[in-house]
Structure formats: C-alpha cells, structure tokens
C-alpha cells in the first residue's frame, strides 16, 4: 500500500460557490484506515471548513454514508485498503439535495418514511406478550430486515429514486414490509394501501441496486417483491 492517497473531494458551499467543484488532495495513510479517517484528516489538518456527518464510527448510526468511488458506502465501515486503489473520489450521497460539501438533506428521505407510518400499532384484540415463535419464518425475515439503520445508501443507489422523486424508495418500503408482515400490527391494510400505488412498490424494477450496496446486507428488493405479492393477495381478498 502506498504511503499516501490521492483524494478527489467534492466541495460545495452554497454561500460562496456558484456550482460544485472538486478539490485534489493528498492524505497520508495508516493501517486499517477507513474513509471516515480520510475525511477527518482533511478536516483536522488540511481544510477545517469541510463539512460531513458522522456519529458512532461503528456502523450503527447510519449518518456517515458517502458516495465513494462510484458507490454509496458507510465512511466508517469502508476500509481504504478494500478499495484497492490510492485514487479515491469522495462525494455526497446521490438522490438527495446537498446542503454543503458532503452533507445532504435527509428531509425528503424521512418524509417518505413518514408516509408509511414507520411505527408499530398494536391490535386491540391481542393481549401482550404475544408469542412469536423464535424460529418461525416470519420472525426470521422480519428480524433480518429490522437491521436497517436508515443510512440512505440504498436510496442513493436506487435508479428509480434518481429518476422519480415521488418513489417511496427501498428503505421506506422495507420498513413498511417489516410492519405489514407482522400479524400483531393493527394498520397493516392501511399501510398496504400506501405502498400499493404507482409510486410505491410498482415503481421498483427489481434491479437489486439497493441490496448490492446495503452495509447491513439487507435485501430490500425481497421486501418489495413480498409487498407486491401482498398487494395481489389483498385484491383477491386473501390478505385482510
């Protein structure tokens, strides 16, 4: 591994810049260096005005998602050595408005979450605790999909989210499925109505871009396909 990295860094300050630009920088390397270390080095030693988001540093909070060498990734979980090149281009996450430098506005992203009512609503006729068998298929599937940290990587990779801003996007649909698949949920049908729209599940073309980039190895495409099946079952009166 080389002793330095050639960084091509996206910069945009709406108060000064007319349009975005790229800055070429050299950053020294060290063992186990992550992309988050790269941007922190730049901010600490080269340019203190660089803006980026991070919090936990261990891939739990989902706030440091960036577009690194043409692919959305979590900056804290992406090792520089894994990129297998010393030339690295760092940009903000695609498909979201840029606030400044590497910081994007997550408002449109969470507006879509709100549409599917991302919280559990308990049925009135059930008495807690409800027994959900630990090794049931339903439980295993929901558990896996609940690992989502809402980092936005899948949203940034989704070509449908890129072409149409009304599309709910993989994370909101994935979240909707975890709730719709939960038999204890009281508003499953209501949720299904929200996703059963042209700009809900039917916009997904099963390209698997979202699944390809998910840092938690979730497959939102699978949730979306299951939602489509539920929509058909609802039409023929099987899903109630």
């Amino acid at each position, binding site marked *: 591994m080389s002793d330095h990295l050639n960084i091509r860094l996206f910069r945009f300050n709406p108060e000064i810049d007319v349009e975005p630009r790229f800055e070429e920088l050299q950053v020294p390397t060290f063992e186990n260096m992550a992309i988050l270390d790269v941007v922190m080095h730049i901010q600490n030693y080269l340019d203190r005005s660089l803006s980026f988001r991070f919090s936990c540093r261990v891939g739990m909070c989902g706030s440091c998602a960036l577009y690194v060498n043409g692919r959305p990734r979590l900056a804290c979980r992406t090792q520089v050595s894994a990129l297998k090149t010393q030339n690295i281009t760092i940009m903000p996450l695609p498909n979201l408005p840029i606030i400044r430098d590497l910081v994007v506005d997550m408002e449109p992203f969470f507006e879509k979450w709100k549409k599917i009512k991302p919280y559990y609503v308990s049925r009135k006729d059930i008495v807690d605790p409800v027994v959900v068998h630990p090794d049931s298929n339903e439980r295993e599937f929901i558990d896996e999909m609940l690992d989502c940290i809402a980092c936005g990587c899948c949203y940034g990779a989704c070509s449908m989210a890129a*072409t149409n801003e009304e599309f709910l996007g993989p994370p909101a649909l994935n979240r909707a499925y975890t709730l719709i698949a939960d038999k204890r949920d009281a508003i499953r049908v209501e949720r299904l109505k929200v996703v059963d729209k042209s700009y809900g599940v*039917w916009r997904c*073309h099963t390209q698997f871009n979202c699944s390809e980039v998910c840092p938690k190895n979730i497959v939102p495409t699978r949730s979306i396909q299951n939602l*489509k099946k539920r*929509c058909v079952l609802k*039409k023929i009166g099987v899903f109630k």
Partner: protein
Amino acid sequence: MNAWAWLLQRVSAVVLLIALGLHIWFLHFSSGDGVLHFGDIVKRLDTGVFITLDILLLICGLYHALYGLYSIFLDFTSGSKERIVVLTLLVMVGIGFSGFGVYGLLWFR
C-alpha cells in the same frame, strides 16, 4: 399501475416463455429437412391449436412489451395528464396491432 397489471405482466412472461419456445420449435426445428416450407406454415395455421398458440403469443408479447414501455415512461414523469395520454396511446397501439395480427393469422383459414 396496480396489482392486476403487475400480476398479468408475470403471467404473460410465463406464457411467453412457453408459447415462444413452442413457436420457435415448430417454425425452425419440427420439419425433417430443417428447411422452412410455405405449404407447411399454411397447413399449420389452418389448425385451431396453432392459431390459438399464435394469438396467445401475439397478445402476451404485446401486453408484456407495452406494459414495460409504460413502466419505463412512469419512471420519468409524475404528471397525470401525460400518463393518461401515453396510456391511451399504448392501449390503442396494443388493440391495433392485436387486431392486425389476429386478422393476419385468420387469413390462412
């Protein structure tokens, strides 16, 4: 776009796989010498089974292709007026080509 349209897209894909396979087999591999003879085609298209198969292929192929086009169009627009115009146009193209194809197939009877 809705659940029925999506389901039909899936069903038409399965039908296309089977009908297209049969169509290619009978058209190119079923004759002994491997050469396509006009007389054989006329004879084949005089039977109800082959006419049904070809009509199925025609309708499923058109539906699958036009639904795909409409779906791509929807990726780039959100205006309801444009959607109605394009959908009407595609339905007309579908009906027109279906009618034209069915007429062509029945002409051999």
